[in-house]
């Protein structure tokens, strides 16, 4: 891997916040960290950008690393344009290059009409897009985005992901954390966390193929290792034996993460 964390552990007040986490970040690739509240996503993002002290392991990042915090990182009492101009000055960008880059980003994010609107007057989706635009403005080698899509409507999420994908296509390594498991498929690699420990990690196809046991779908609950999804029930057979009355299906990422959590509880 080019950058990332290797066997990193962090303790907060005697409790592990991250345990033995490894994640590679490579140019042109998107890594998605998924997990619920308290899974350790924000801690991992903050660790990679140097905002947390690690207890064990190694962290590496390029000098040109940008970060969008969970809160969007937008200054609410500056306008869209002022936010971008401040970041450009902070990174000491050449004035004419900065102007062109800001116009380009305002165009891509469709924030041009809101250029003179204060940060606090932007909608959630616009604020997050501005946050990502601020993070990519300096053309970083590594872009770390902490839950940029949380709380956004589906259309805003799509627009934001399109912008993030474009950033990766420009050759930068991108790390995105999300509470939405379905967003992991938009990345090249996924890391699923729970309580600071890794449930699953790797390329999406490998993670799907690597699920232990077999997965079934049924009309009814099938023992302890089953969970409801939509109108039906998923049932996991850890030893691979068939489940009567249930039909085997190929797991998706949500299933694999749930199975990893179940397997962890049972071991």
């Amino acid at each position, binding site marked *: 891997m080019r950058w990332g964390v290797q066997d990193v552990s962090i303790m907060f007040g005697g409790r592990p916040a991250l345990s033995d986490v490894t994640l590679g970040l490579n140019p042109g690739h998107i890594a998605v960290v998924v997990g619920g509240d308290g899974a350790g996503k924000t801690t991992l993002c903050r660790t990679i950008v*140097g905002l947390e002290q690690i207890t064990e392991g190694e*962290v590496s990042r390029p000098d040109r690393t940008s*970060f969008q915090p969970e809160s969007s990182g937008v200054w609410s009492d500056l306008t869209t344009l002022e936010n971008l101009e401040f970041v450009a000055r902070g990174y000491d960008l050449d004035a004419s290059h900065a102007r062109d880059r800001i116009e380009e980003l305002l165009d891509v994010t469709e924030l041009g009409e809101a250029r003179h609107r204060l940060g606090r007057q932007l909608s959630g989706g616009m604020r997050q897009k501005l946050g990502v635009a601020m993070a990519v403005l300096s053309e970083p080698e590594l872009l770390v985005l902490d839950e940029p899509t949380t709380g956004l409507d589906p259309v805003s999420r799509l627009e934001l992901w399109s912008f993030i994908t474009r950033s990766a296509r420009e050759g930068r390594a991108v790390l995105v954390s999300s509470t939405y498991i379905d967003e992991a498929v938009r990345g090249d690699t996924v890391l699923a966390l729970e309580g600071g420990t890794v449930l699953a990690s790797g390329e999406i196809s490998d993670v799907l193929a690597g699920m232990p046991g077999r997965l079934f779908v049924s009309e009814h609950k099938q023992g302890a290792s089953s969970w409801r999804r939509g109108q039906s029930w998923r049932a996991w057979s850890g030893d691979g034996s068939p489940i009567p009355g249930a039909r085997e299906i190929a797991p998706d990422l949500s299933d694999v993460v749930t199975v990893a959590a179940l397997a962890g509880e049972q071991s």
Partner: protein
Amino acid sequence: MLAMILKEFRQVRRDRRTLAMLIVMPVVLLLVFGYAASFDVEEIPTVVAGSQAEAVSERLPEVFTVESADSTASRADAENDLITGKAHVAFVVDGQEITALIDGSELFMAQAAVRVITAASDQVPGLSHEVLFNPKLDTSAVLIPGLAGLIIVFVGTLVTSMSVVREREAGTLEQLAVMPFKPKDVFIGKISPYFLIASIDIVLVLLIGTLLFDVPFNGSVLPLSFGAVMFLFVALGAGVLISSVSENQAQAIQLALMTALPQIMLSGIIFPLSSMAPGVRWIGYLLPLTYFNQVAKGAMVRGAGLGDLLIPLGLLTLLGLAIFGLAITRFSRQLRPARARTSA
């Protein structure tokens, strides 16, 4: 309703800092301010100058604590002792005439001295008194220089601490931490507007005090400006320090008020330091506003110059360096806790 009451009690119980403030602080404040709140003047630092200085000094009422009795000293020397703050009353003996020069910048001491001397003048022929610097003993002339300091405390400490905490609450401090700013750049950038606003406030307060309330400006701008800048560093540094131990703006306000209150009560602006019980007086000597008040009153009312105010200016500078240095160190550590542990 019972559910609501129970909920509130639970919330109050869990907000330990507020609870401590609500229960412990009133007791502490009452004890501290109870011993501090006194206008009674029991000691007035005094010098005696001129012929028979020693003989006169032995006959002075007990309230005058004689710092020196010099038969070779002149009236000019005695006035200088008042300007430098060495003494607040100077008896100048010239043959049968004894003139008590009273420092009008120390209101309560001056009032007490006038009372005692007026009462004694019936028994001591030739005794007269003269109030210098603030002849009418105007309260505003004595209070306004100190009030300028109080305004710096509020703007500098309260507003700065809230501003830094607001940045942290909004998550934008993390953004700054990752940008290629040095911690000192962020620190200086954060406090710069408040430095300017507080500076404008001081100028406004002192201008209004001079023009509207006839506060005299007998001295030079230099010691006052130097003292004000040093005091600003203290106040802004304290604001950043408070922000570093506050999780939210409400906590920052609480802490800022807790640092402002003792400065109001114990810095000598309202109650004379010499009237306070020794058990609380030492707190006053640890407070930066005490020294700013001495500098401002000295420069404005008594016409003291830079050389006359070296001690309070020196102490203010030391406090400024200590508090500002501590604030920069803590702020830097909080801004980039892990920089040293990672590699590119």
